[in-house]
């Protein structure tokens, strides 16, 4: 006997993500899910961001990694509101892990929660964590072909960061191809080019974050 069904596989994750979203919104916390390759500069950008917005925005960070607490140790130099999640080999964060992380934070004291996903351009994309926006991050040394290879990340993102632009003169990277490929997938996706090392472009990123943090908690 065949039983026809229409059920999303992984709805358990979505249900927990919905609970996260309810809790975050009740506490007035805006949440972004930062996704990019290993080594694209997510942690350094967060460190610079926390420094720049110190005293202005209260930012919590949940950082996901396969192993080690190195990212959390770096973040902890800039904020006490940091939780490290080790996935033990898991290639992405799931909503239940973020739920545990949220439980360790004093949500009402935060304006913004940044979830630094496991460095990976593929697996994190399909897992809702309860965020208000997904932010994609590519770095210049990865090459200009990242948009063409990762359309699903771009289709879900509300913002794309191109990091390490200070390396543009030193590595082969065709910006025109990068932008043309991006325009073929999401002509409306805002892109911010920046370097956390030199500070280039950080002003626009901080302005975006301020506007995002002030946005409606729906």
């Amino acid at each position: 006997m065949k039983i026809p069904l229409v059920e999303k596989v992984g709805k358990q994750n979505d249900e927990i993500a919905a609970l996260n979203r309810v809790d975050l919104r009740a506490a007035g916390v805006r949440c972004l899910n930062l996704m990019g390759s290993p080594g694209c500069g997510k942690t350094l950008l967060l460190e610079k961001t926390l420094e720049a917005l110190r005293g202005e925005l209260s930012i919590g960070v949940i950082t996901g990694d396969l192993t080690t607490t190195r990212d959390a140790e770096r973040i902890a130099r800039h904020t006490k509101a940091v939780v490290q999640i080790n996935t033990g080999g898991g290639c992405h964060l799931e909503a239940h892990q973020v739920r545990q992380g949220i439980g360790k934070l004093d949500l009402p004291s935060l304006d913004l929660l940044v979830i630094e996903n496991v460095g990976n351009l593929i697996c994190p994309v399909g897992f809702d964590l309860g965020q208000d926006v997904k932010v994609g991050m590519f770095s210049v040394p990865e090459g200009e072909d990242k948009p063409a290879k990762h359309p699903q990340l771009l289709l879900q993102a509300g913002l794309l960061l191109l990091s390490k632009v200070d390396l543009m003169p030193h590595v082969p990277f065709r910006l025109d191809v990068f932008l043309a490929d991006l325009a073929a997938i999401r002509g409306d996706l805002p892109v911010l080019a920046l370097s956390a090392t030199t500070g280039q472009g950080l002003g626009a990123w901080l302005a975006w974050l301020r506007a995002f943090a002030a946005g409606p908690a729906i």
Partner: protein
Amino acid sequence: MHEMSIVSALVEQVRAFVPVDATLLSVRIEVGALEHLDDDVLRSLFGLLTEGTPLAGAGLAVERVPLRVRCAACGTEHAPPDPAALFCPSCGVARPEILAGSGVTLSSIEVDVPEGGE
């Protein structure tokens, strides 16, 4: 390699639909064209995760769902063959809203229910 997460969730969801005393024969899922999931890995993991359980022995059929989008600029619906080239054939811009071709859906199960089982 997020196939493990997907298949773990799938097995749990399938279990809820299999009637008591019935034998699960097969499971069919639809995988969107945008998903980076390997069919062989999905099938192997399904075998592995059902082994030694009442669901053991059931096959997993994987069907690919083509991408279908609606242009947010002009409303035209189209089915782009290449997920990295999403220009609207009517107005030429790429502002796609995904209608189909994303995510994984459990679309049917086949079970053998013993006669007089009520």
